[in-house]
C-alpha cells in the first residue's frame, strides 16, 4: 500500500534539497554590497559572444565610473517576459538606470513606460524599441547604413552580371532585421523602403527570402531551400555571420560557393575569420563594447548630474572586406580582427 512510505527518508531528501541549494548559492559569486549607485544591463541572452563583449565593455566602464553593474538577460532571443522580470528585479535592487537590448521591440514598451514613470532612465542599446520614443535614448549601430555598406560592396563585386539575390533575414517584424535588409537593397541600388519601415522590401532582383532567426542551422536550411527555388543565385545577403556560415555550408554542398557573393553584418571574430578565409566577401562590423561603455557613461552622468540623454547616438560601423574594390571604402581583415568580439 502507498501508505507505507517511510517518512524519515523523505525528510532526508528534503535535507539534501536544502544542502544543495546552499552549496549552489555559496559557490555562486556574490558581491558584497557597497553603497555604489547601480546601473542594470539587460541583454538578449547571456551567452551570445556579442553580448558577452557588450557586458565586458559595460563592466570596464562601470569600474571607471564607480558604478555597480547588475546584468540580466532573457532566456532566449525572443523571450520578452524574461526581460521584463529582469528589469523589475533590477529596479527592486535599486537601479536608477536600465540599459537594455530589447528582444521584442513592441512587447517591452509597456514595461519600459512603467519604469520611466518611476523616474528610471532607460537607454536602448543596439536596437530601438517600437516606437523609438519609448526609451530616453538609443545608442546603436546604424543598421540601415550597415546594410548599405554591404549592398554597395556586393553591387560593385558583382560587376555587370545580372543580380539574383537571396536574402536570409532575421524574423518578421524586427526593426534591425528590416533596417539591414532595406539598407542592403538601397546600397545595391534597388528600390527600398526607408530606415523607419519594418516591412521588408522585395524588388524583382530578390529571387528568394527566408527567415534564419540569426541561427546557423536555420541559415543553412534557408539557403538550401533558396537554391532549390533558384539555382542561379549570385548574391547572398545574411542578417549575421552565423547565418552566413550556415549559408556557406549550403553553397558548398551544392558546389556553388564560387559563384555567389556572400555578405553579412556583425564583425564578430569568427565572422572576420570567415572573411579572411574567403567564405564571406564582406561584413559590416559593429562595436558592442563602445555601445555599452557609452551607455554606462551616460547613465553615470545622469546619476551624478541629473542630465537625461536623449535621441539617437550612432556607435559606428565599418565595412571589412577580404578584397578591396575601387570606389567602395573598406578596411582589411587585420583591422577587423583588432576590434572584433568573440573568440579570436
Amino acid at each position, binding site marked *: 500500500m502507498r501508505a*507505507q512510505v517511510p517518512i524519515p527518508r523523505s*525528510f532526508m*531528501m528534503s535535507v539534501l534539497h536544502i544542502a544543495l*541549494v546552499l552549496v549552489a548559492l555559496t559557490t555562486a559569486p556574490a558581491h558584497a554590497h557597497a553603497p555604489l549607485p547601480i546601473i542594470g544591463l539587460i541583454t538578449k541572452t547571456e551567452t551570445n559572444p556579442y553580448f558577452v563583449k557588450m557586458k565586458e565593455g559595460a563592466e570596464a566602464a562601470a569600474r571607471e565610473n564607480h558604478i555597480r553593474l547588475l546584468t540580466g538577460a532573457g532566456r532566449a532571443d525572443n523571450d520578452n517576459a524574461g526581460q521584463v*522580470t529582469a528589469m523589475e528585479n533590477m529596479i*527592486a*535592487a535599486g537601479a536608477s538606470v536600465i540599459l537594455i537590448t530589447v528582444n*521584442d521591440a513592441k512587447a517591452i*514598451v509597456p514595461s519600459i513606460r512603467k519604469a520611466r514613470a518611476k523616474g528610471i532612465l532607460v537607454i536602448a542599446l543596439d536596437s530601438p524599441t517600437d516606437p523609438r520614443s519609448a526609451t530616453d535614448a538609443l545608442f546603436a549601430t546604424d543598421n540601415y547604413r550597415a546594410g548599405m555598406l554591404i549592398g554597395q560592396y556586393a553591387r560593385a563585386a558583382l560587376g555587370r552580371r545580372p543580380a539574383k539575390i537571396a536574402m536570409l533575414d532575421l524574423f518578421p*517584424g524586427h526593426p534591425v532585421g528590416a533596417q539591414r535588409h532595406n539598407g542592403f537593397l538601397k546600397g545595391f541600388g534597388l528600390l527600398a523602403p526607408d530606415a523607419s519601415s519594418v516591412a521588408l522590401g522585395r524588388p524583382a532582383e530578390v529571387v528568394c527570402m527566408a527567415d534564419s532567426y540569426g541561427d546557423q542551422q536555420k541559415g543553412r536550411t534557408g539557403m538550401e531551400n533558396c537554391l532549390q527555388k533558384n539555382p542561379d543565385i549570385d548574391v547572398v545577403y545574411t542578417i549575421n555571420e552565423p547565418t552566413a556560415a550556415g549559408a556557406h555550408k549550403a553553397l558548398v554542398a551544392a558546389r556553388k560557393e564560387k559563384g555567389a557573393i556572400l555578405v553579412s553584418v556583425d564583425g564578430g571574430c569568427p565572422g572576420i575569420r570567415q572573411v579572411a578565409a574567403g567564405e564571406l566577401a564582406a561584413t559590416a562590423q559593429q562595436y558592442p563594447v563602445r555601445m555599452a561603455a557609452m551607455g554606462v557613461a551616460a547613465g553615470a552622468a545622469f546619476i551624478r548630474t541629473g542630465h537625461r540623454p536623449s535621441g539617437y547616438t550612432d556607435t559606428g560601423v565599418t565595412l571589412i572586406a577580404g578584397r578591396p574594390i575601387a570606389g567602395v571604402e573598406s578596411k582589411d581583415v587585420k583591422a577587423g580582427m583588432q576590434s572584433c568580439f568573440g573568440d579570436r
Partner: protein
Amino acid sequence: MLRRQVGALAWVGVLGPLLALVLACGFFASRTDRFLTADNLSLVLQQVMVVGVIALGQTLIILTAGVDLSCGMVMALGSIVMTRLATSAGVPVPLAIAAGIGVATMFGLANGFLVTVVRLPPFIVTLGTMNIAFALTQLASGAQTVTDVPPALAILGNTVTIGRTSVVYGVGLMLALYLVAWFALRETAWGRHVYAVGNAPEAARLSGIPTRRVLIGVYVLAGAVYGLASLLSVARTGVGDPNAGTTENLDAITAVVLGGTSLFGGRGVIVGSLVGALIIGVFRNGLTLIGVVSVYQILVTGILVILAVAADQLSRGSAR
C-alpha cells in the same frame, strides 16, 4: 483513515520544497535588505502568477498520471485571440476574453478527447497540440506583437494597495484559484476521483468511477485555467506576445515537479505547485538583487527537479 494517511503523506512531499523555499528566502534576506520587503515579495508573486496558474492546470493533469506539453502554447494562443479580437476586430473586451478562454478550453477538450476516447498517450497528444497551438499563434498574430491593447483587457495588472504595498489583482486571482482547487481536490467526490483515476485507473473504473468523464473533465478544466493564464499574461506585459509560452511551458511542469506532485499520478498536493513556482521566482529575484547572473536560477532549478523526482521515486521503491 486511509484517506487521512495519504493526505498526511502528500503534505510531506510539500514540506521539503517549502523548507527549500524558506531557506532560500532566509539566505537572500541575509544578503540584502531589499529582499524581505513587502514590495519585493509582492513583485515576486506578480512575476510567478502566469506560471503559477498554468502549473495549477498542469497539476490536475499530472495527478491523473498524464502530462500536458501544450500548456504554455495554449496560453500564448489564448492571449493572441483576446488581444487581436479586442484591437483589430474591435470586439468588446468581455467577449474577447471569453473567446480567448474558450479557445484554450477547446484545446483542453481536444487533448482530453484524444487521450480518453482515442486512447493516445498524453505525451504524444499534447506534443501535437503544442505545435498546433504554436502555429495557430503565429498565424493569428502574423508573428507580430499585438499592441495598443485596451486597458480593460489588462485590468488584472492594476494594483490594489494593501497596507502600504501594492498588489496586482492577478495575484489575487491566482491565490483564489489555488484555494478553490485545493478545496475541490480535498473535499469533493470529484477531487477524490481525480486522485483515484491517477492512482489506479482500472480499480477506479471497477469501483464505479466514470473514469473517462473525470479525465476529459480534467483536461477541459486545465484548458480553461490556461485561458485565465492568458489573461494574466496580457495583464503582465500589456501586449499580446506571440513568442510567449516557450519558457512558461517547461517552467510550469518544473513547478509541479518541484512541488512534490508525482509524475506517476495520484499523489501530490496542489499548493505544492505554487510553492514550486515561488521557488523559481524567488531565486530569479533574489539572485538579481544580490548581483548574481540569473542563469544560476536555472542551474539550481535543474538540480532541485532531479532531487524532487528522485525523492518521489525512492519513496515509491520502498513502498513496494
